[in-house]
């Protein structure tokens, strides 16, 4: 029995001529103290935060998500020795993650304060704005490896567009993030002005799992267990991919690039095979689609790798990667969360050097124009 299950690093991977630096498309920074973001919020909303806090779209008070598997869904070794929650201390993040794993760029994904699930849309917009400023001041300005995303809650399109414009002027953000658990499926036309603006600005649209849209997270209702809910991240992503494609978003916005973050990728082949079959049968219902759904998926969508599927046999992961396409995958670690993937061990199947370069660096470099 090996100490680490079949660590599948090929001899040629170990001896690769040039160093492979990593672009990690999912790094979670967190707020050390509320006062850190209050400085970016007008007094009116600071007081609101203190007086009312979050009003979320979950059905019952107290159904907010922690602990889920581990406190703050974090790796137990990621609590900074200086105090504060995991992900809140840049020096510790450098020491534990960015430096030892040779991260060239880390794309920041903020989940704090349930930014996308605030029932009060103006308060939600105030938090998004504050966090967008905080990402630059506390992270990107202090470490140029860390790249910020424009968080824009899509349920009030006007507020979202205003925030996108404001951040686009600053010019330092690499993508626009919306939430997969919105009030309506993401392909619906009410959201199209956001997609139009993202396309014009040349910024990819990032969709990170999580949030509460007010609906049960599975098509079958509210799950009993976290294990069930965690599984539902994949169904949610599959539903949103279907909605975006079948409602015609890539057809209408051919230059828009869409990235699904933290949804894994095992579900993609069957979702696209199924869509293609349905397209043959129901073509006249969706005449706005000019091509097979899988063709849109192959050209307009990208997927981050974590949580990577771990079939018992490495060759099945290999087939999966080929079905999804090496060009579609972007490495992500999800640091510092509990289901973190270490780039050295994440792929339990050998990859050629060309494939590694694409997945760990090249695809993200091109997509985010880094």
């Amino acid at each position, binding site marked *: *029995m090996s*100490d*680490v*299950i079949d660590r599948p690093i090929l001899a040629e991977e170990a001896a690769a001529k040039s160093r492979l630096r990593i672009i990690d498309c999912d790094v979670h920074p967190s707020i050390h103290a509320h006062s850190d973001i209050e400085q970016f919020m007008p007094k009116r909303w600071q007081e609101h935060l203190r007086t009312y806090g979050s009003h979320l779209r979950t059905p019952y008070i107290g159904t907010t998500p922690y602990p889920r598997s581990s406190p703050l869904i974090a*790796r*137990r*070794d990621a609590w900074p020795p200086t105090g504060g929650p995991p992900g809140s201390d840049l020096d510790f993040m450098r020491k534990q993650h960015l430096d030892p794993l040779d991260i060239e760029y880390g794309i920041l994904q903020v989940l704090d304060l349930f930014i996308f699930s605030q029932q009060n849309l103006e308060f939600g917009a105030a938090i998004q704005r504050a966090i967008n400023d905080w990402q630059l001041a506390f992270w990107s300005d202090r470490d140029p490896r860390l790249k910020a995303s424009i968080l824009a809650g899509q349920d009030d399109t006007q507020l979202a567009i205003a925030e996108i414009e404001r951040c686009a002027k600053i010019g330092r953000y690499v993508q626009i993030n919306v939430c997969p658990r919105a009030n309506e499926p993401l392909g619906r036309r009410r959201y199209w002005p956001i997609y139009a603006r993202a396309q014009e600005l040349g910024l990819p649209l990032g969709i990170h799992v999580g949030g509460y849209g007010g609906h049960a997270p599975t098509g079958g209702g509210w799950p009993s267990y976290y294990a069930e809910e965690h599984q539902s991240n994949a169904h949610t992503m599959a539903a949103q991919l279907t909605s975006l494609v079948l409602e015609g978003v890539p057809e209408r916005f051919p230059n828009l690039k869409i990235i699904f973050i933290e949804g894994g990728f095992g579900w993609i082949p069957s979702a696209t095979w199924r869509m293609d079959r349905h397209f043959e049968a129901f073509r006249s219902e969706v005449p706005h689609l000019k091509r097979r759904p899988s063709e849109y998926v192959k050209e307009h969508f990208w997927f981050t790798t974590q949580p990577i599927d771990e079939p018992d046999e490495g060759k099945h992961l290999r087939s999966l990667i080929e079905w999804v396409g090496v060009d579609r995958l972007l490495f992500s670690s999800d640091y510092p969360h509990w*289901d973190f*993937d*270490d780039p050295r061990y994440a792929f339990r199947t050998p990859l050629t050097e060309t494939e590694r370069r694409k997945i760990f660096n090249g695809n993200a470099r091109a997509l985010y124009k880094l």
Partner: protein
Amino acid sequence: MTRHIVARTSDIPPGGNKVFGVDGRDIVVFHVNGEFFALLNRCPHAGAPLEKAACVARLTSPEPGVYERSRVGELLRCAWHGWEFDMRNGQSWFDPKRVKIRSYPVSVESGEVLQKGPYVAETFPVHVEDSYVIIET
């Protein structure tokens, strides 16, 4: 088998652990309910340091809705993806045949006995009045 004296029993508090470098390996020793367990400090899944794992109980359910806790503190729950292992032998609960942490035999002996025996004192000068944790590799 080489025997390595790595610590005084009092150096590892109950419920705690300590990592020792032995022959180029990091070995973590846990102190649970008066017993000591030594394991390679590395999760067989993706390499997380086991010193950060949680020491938990075994939770079983003979039928839906009935829960039983046993062997409190003797199971390790990895700091990253939460895989659970038995501290006694390093075996995983979910796939005991395939997945296992490397474990080492541990014993506790008094300084008196150790001074008489031909043992390798790697880390500690031995005092007759103390008890020591010994790992075999």
